[in-house]
């Protein structure tokens, strides 16, 4: 494992049992959902690109828990975790990956482009960096209206090299917009390690160049993620302008289903797997006596049912009629 930076130590918020279980449940849902998705991809039920979030679940679950329903969300092509954590029904997501009309984007988006306006989930963006200006604009609208919601924008550390990162952070700070930039630093952009994509790998120094307050958090610790995000959300919501939180995390799978993973050592992956956010948090809840074997079993069972239902929903879903090919290109 590469050397770790000093991260902000997790605020030691007392963990309520119920809440702890909810966090674990959230992570488990993502894990099992994606394991199933990978299986269905192999089976040819899901096509196109499939980018798994496995290993990074603590980030989406912890961060989303700190946001309100009226906040806006912008995600990337690796958006299953964000969508599930935001509360989009697993069935609508699975159906989307099947390309069905009951999918959350009516089969037009696929895995990379989940949308749910009712949950202010403004979508998965598949051009790296392309979601940042959108988030700035969402926040600008709220600011101009004097509205309370903030916009949370997820992106990978690879996006930091793009010009749009630079332009967006500057604009957000210049105009003091309520945007929360959430950088998922999983150390690789496809096969390019952060060290080969940034001359300065401490991303907080990037944020400083725009006078955007930033902190780095252990992205494998769901409670730490939630605490840090909550603090940042409060600062943003109270008019303090944009903030950036960097989550140190790792994807356990390849970049997409096609990745031969030539660029990293198996040992590195194994080391990170020892920090599996789900295993770690399970252990912590157990230690504190908040989680019994029975609890875990019933969680897993609930999740399994949810996934089964999602697959059934997707399987049963209708195909969008081909005559509707041009529907939604423009408003009627």
């Amino acid at each position: 494992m590469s050397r770790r930076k000093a991260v902000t130590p997790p605020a030691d918020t007392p963990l309520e049992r119920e809440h702890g279980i909810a966090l674990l449940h959230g992570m488990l849902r993502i894990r099992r959902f994606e394991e199933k998705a990978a299986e269905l991809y192999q089976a040819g039920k899901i096509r196109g690109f499939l980018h798994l979030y496995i290993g990074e679940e603590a980030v989406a679950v912890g961060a989303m828990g700190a946001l309100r329903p009226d906040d806006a969300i912008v995600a990337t092509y690796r958006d299953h975790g964000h969508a599930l954590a935001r509360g989009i029904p697993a069935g609508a997501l699975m159906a989307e990956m099947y390309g069905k009309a009951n999918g959350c984007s009516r089969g037009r988006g696929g895995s990379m482009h989940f949308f749910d306006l009712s949950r202010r989930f403004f979508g998965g963006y598949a051009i790296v960096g392309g979601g940042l200006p959108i988030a700035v604009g969402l926040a600008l609208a709220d600011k101009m209206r004097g509205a309370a919601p903030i916009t949370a924008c997820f992106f990978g550390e690879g996006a930091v090299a793009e010009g749009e990162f630079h332009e967006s952070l500057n604009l957000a700070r210049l105009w003091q917009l309520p945007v929360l930039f959430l950088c998922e630093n999983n150390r690789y952009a496809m096969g390019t390690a952060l060290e080969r994509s940034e001359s300065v790998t401490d991303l907080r120094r990037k944020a400083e160049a725009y006078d955007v307050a930033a902190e780095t958090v252990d992205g494998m610790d769901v409670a730490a993620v939630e605490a840090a995000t909550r603090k940042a959300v409060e600062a943003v919501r109270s008019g303090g302008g944009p903030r950036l939180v960097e989550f140190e995390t790792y994807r356990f799978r390849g970049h997409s289903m096609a990745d031969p993973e030539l660029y990293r050592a198996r040992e590195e992956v194994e080391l990170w797997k020892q920090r599996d956010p789900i295993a770690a948090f399970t252990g912590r809840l157990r230690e504190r006596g908040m989680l019994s074997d029975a609890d875990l079993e019933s969680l897993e069972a609930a999740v399994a049912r949810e996934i089964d239902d999602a697959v059934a929903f997707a399987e049963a879903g209708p195909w969008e009629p081909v005559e509707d090919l041009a529907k939604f290109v423009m408003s009627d």
Partner: protein
Amino acid sequence: MTTMTYREALRSALRDALLADERVFLMGEDVGRYGGAFAVSHGLIDEFGPERVRDAPLSESAFVGAGIGAALNGMRPIVEVMTVNFSMLAMDQILNNAATLRYMSGGQLNIPLVVRMATGGGRQLGAQHSHSLEGWYAHIPGITVLSPATVADARGMVLAAIQRPDPVFIFEHATLYPVEDDIDAQSGAVEIEHAAVRRRGKDVTLIGYGASLGKALSASTELAAQGIEADVIDLRVLRPLDMDTVLESVAKTHRALMVDEAWRTGSLAAEVSAQITERGFDYLDWPVARVCGAEVPAPYARHMEDASLPQTPAIVEAVQEMFA
């Protein structure tokens, strides 16, 4: 009726849009304190303040993207990209976000965004500042592309665009800003679905838009003196194209020529030509002709730039050939 320049007509429309709807705001480089690179928004910052007439840094991708985001979230932004030349820096946001989000979201999102920019050559600004790329925009499903050629359309198209639920791109040919004409200062939105016949004739159909309309019109005057009467069509809406109006004319004239400042290969004129042939093959007594920009980066020197752009004599000559 009052007399107004194209520039003033645009400004009056922007002002009316800002007055009519709180959700409307202007955003772009130098739209505020500078007054607009072409003075279109001159004075508006004094009336509406820097929040609603918002100067943006040199960050085309971010402020166009921010316009998309603000439109997604209930505002009605009018973004100025100064010129089409700089819009390449925002092309990703335009092509991959503005034009796709409604579709990709299965109809959940919509983007009531207006983007204005100057376009075209003829001012000796050289290869990086003289592009005519509205034809590229006309290729993109999911957006509407307008090209006002008259003072009335300058005003009326902005007012029409701001009412649309989907992105509208307005291309203002930079040589038109000082052009004057009479206009009803209170006039509202114009329809933005049809091409307009700007002159009626029976012998040949000349098609243009933006600044090339003027060249088609002046060619038609010369041709009239030679006994050739031209229908002159102003496309007005570059996407979606109103080919019905064009074909109706060609059914009568049996000959058509399009004037287009853009480089010939892959120009909008190619599309118009292809569609006329596809739908009106039996009308045609002569192949559809094109008078387009030469396939060179825009040269600075006056005589070279003149030679690189469609000019009236070339249009007249091409029509004469049809009757030779």
